[in-house]
């Protein structure tokens, strides 16, 4: 029987399948952060259990960490007492169990889904979990990666396994070529607008097609990152030469003979010819335009040139109520265009779009321009490694000269736990992944978009179609 990529990884990780029980699935890599782990460690402590595989586990700090500049002592000051406790709890827990932890401001600290790939820990064919729904990001390498709850974090710490029912599969095929000014972010926003935020529930996505194959690894991560916004816990892309090139030479990548062995195995992973999926969606990359969201979930998205839909179009009452509520929250009218809508804040960052290629693109777009009067623009690198690389390339200077803030690494305004947040009523164009009510600060209003759209909007102070500006600018690298 021909198998899909998902089925190959799943089958290789089933430890046992007791009768009347879900499968016991082995976890190769467990990522941990400060917000969803403390109660799991407490659970282990209460039972007198030690972490089973501390060296298949890695911890970082990202959610509640400030991104404000370092003090004279070279340290990033944490002023929120609860955050101080949470960060210290993580360090204590990791030390107790022998789990490596990247503390705030240290060389390799960063957003959990940025550091796994950049360190070469994320590899094809692995199972990867984290108490964080955007663990789907790592699927870009052809790893089965998904978010879990805190009870399950305890399960993995204690046993390196999880009880899992086998999900269904969903092929998302994108063929063709993206137009200038259209990026991976627009592909995934279009997918979610198409199927809705519950459309992939119970499924694992596999993104296929020529448009996906031609994307860089970092662009693939942007796509897999937002699989959960389509309801799927995991999204996969088959590994290929692009994948191997990205991994080779990274700190945790296999070396020498191990490398050859690993690549030989990775080449066996792509879905077999004739393998079938439970569901399928086909999109044409040639016809995609820059996307933007108008509502309060990532499925409420449209082409940037379209107008806000009318709740009256829904016959279903609960759908109508949801859109009514969303438009009231966003203070938008049915039929209104978003182009030209005022913007207060622009956020470039998050595990969706804070990697070096995102920052290069943003810098190219803003170079020679200034952030519009009255607009606050934050650029938050995904990790300390990304930050150092960007500074080595001088990107930080481009941002600062344009009037943007250049920050330390972390989740920042994606989740607004650390003081980086919108004020009530403010509008943001954000490169992050969620536009839920209050997500970027209580009363704040989010338009999700690509880094190109975000920067174009920062320059004009209003929502702007990046294609109008990309045309004038000579890009050294193709938007990816």
């Amino acid at each position, binding site marked *: 029987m021909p198998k899909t990529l998902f089925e190959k990884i799943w089958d290789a990780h089933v*430890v*046992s399948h007791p009768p*009347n*029980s*879900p499968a*016991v699935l*082995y976890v*190769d*890599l467990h990522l941990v952060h400060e*917000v*969803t782990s*403390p109660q799991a460690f*407490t*659970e282990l402590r209460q039972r007198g*259990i030690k972490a*089973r595989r501390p*060296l*298949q586990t*890695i911890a970082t700090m990202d*959610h*509640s960490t400030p991104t404000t500049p370092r003090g004279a002592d070279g340290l990033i000051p944490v002023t929120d007492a*609860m955050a101080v*406790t*949470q960060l210290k709890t993580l360090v204590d827990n990791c030390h107790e169990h022998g789990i*490596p932890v990247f503390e705030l401001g240290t060389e390799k600290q960063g957003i959990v889904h940025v550091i796994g790939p950049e360190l070469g*820990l994320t590899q094809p064919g692995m199972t990867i979990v984290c*108490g*964080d*729904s955007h663990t789907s990001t790592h699927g870009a390498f052809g790893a089965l990666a998904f*978010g*879990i*709850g*805190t*009870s*399950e974090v*305890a*399960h993995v710490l*204690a*046993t*390196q*396994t999880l*009880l899992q029912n086998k999900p269904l599969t969903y092929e998302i095929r994108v063929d063709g070529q993206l137009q200038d000014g259209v990026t991976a972010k627009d592909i995934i926003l279009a997918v979610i607008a198409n199927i809705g935020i*519950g459309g992939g*529930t119970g499924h694992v996505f596999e993104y296929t097609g020529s448009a996906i194959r031609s994307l860089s690894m970092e662009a693939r991560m942007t796509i897999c990152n937002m699989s*959960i916004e389509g*309801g799927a*816990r995991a999204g996969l892309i088959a590994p290929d030469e692009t994948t191997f090139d990205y991994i080779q030479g990274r*700190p*945790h990548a296999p070396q020498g003979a191990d490398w050859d062995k690993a690549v030989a195995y990775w080449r066996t992973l792509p879905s077999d010819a004739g393998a079938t999926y439970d569901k399928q969606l086909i999109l044409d990359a040639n016809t995609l335009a820059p996307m933007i969201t108008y509502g309060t*979930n990532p499925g409420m998205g449209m082409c940037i040139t379209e107008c806000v839909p009318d709740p009256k179009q829904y016959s279903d009452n*609960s759908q109508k*109520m*949801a859109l009514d509520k969303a438009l009231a929250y966003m203070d938008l009218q049915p039929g209104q265009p978003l182009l030209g809508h005022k913007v207060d804040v622009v956020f470039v960052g998050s595990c969706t779009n804070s990697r070096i290629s995102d920052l290069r693109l943003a810098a190219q777009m803003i170079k020679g321009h200034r952030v519009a009067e009255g607009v606050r623009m934050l650029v938050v690198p995904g990790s300390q490694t990304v930050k150092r690389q960007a500074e080595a390339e001088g990107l930080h200077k481009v941002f600062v000269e344009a009037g943007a803030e250049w920050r330390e690494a972390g989740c920042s305004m994606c*989740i*607004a*736990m650390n003081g980086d947040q919108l004020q009530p009523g403010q509008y943001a164009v954000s490169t992050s992944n*969620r536009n*839920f009510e*209050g997500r970027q600060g*209580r009363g704040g209003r989010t338009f999700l978009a690509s880094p190109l759209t975000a920067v174009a909007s920062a320059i004009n102070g209003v929502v702007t179609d990046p294609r109008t500006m990309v045309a004038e600018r000579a890009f050294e690298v193709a938007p990816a």
Partner: protein
Amino acid sequence: MEPLKPFSASLVPLPIENIDTDQIIPARYLKVTDKNSLAEGCFTDWRQDPEFVLNNPRYQNGHILVAGHNFGCGSSREHAPWALKAYGFQAVISTYFADIFRNNSLKNGLLPIVVDAETHQALLDLAEEAPEAEVHIDLASQTVTLPNGQKAFFPIDPFSKTCLLEGIDELGYLMKQTPEIEAFEVSHPARVQTLQP
């Protein structure tokens, strides 16, 4: 975990679709390191609106939330079921739940009950007409019973059902798999080591 017994409770209607976990418990409440202090944060931003259902005196005694389609989407935070439980909810009824929320709820004895659209509407009508009316929930027979005797069956995977009914703790269950896990590890060497190479 305590075995889950049959119970009766009245309803709180919240028929909005795609209610995400950021609404159930906003991120600023996630700086806690325990599970018990989350009642205050439960739907806290929506509760600022005096018209919101949780502020409606008619529904003060409700312990079963009847929510719109795809409840609990978004973040994987288990703080969502912890907050709902701390606030006093024993079950959530919807036509559809997001995967991670459903898993998290089952692990905390907060029943995620999926019913068809017709039953869902009947429950919303009941809550509207008779806020004090109680429905009866029996996990063993997988049924929700309305005061007029109307019964609706709800699906649940057999393993979760057994765990909830018998108070079986999943971590304990997994620990008993240790011999199988050891055998697996012998034949499947670790793919990466997270210590600095």
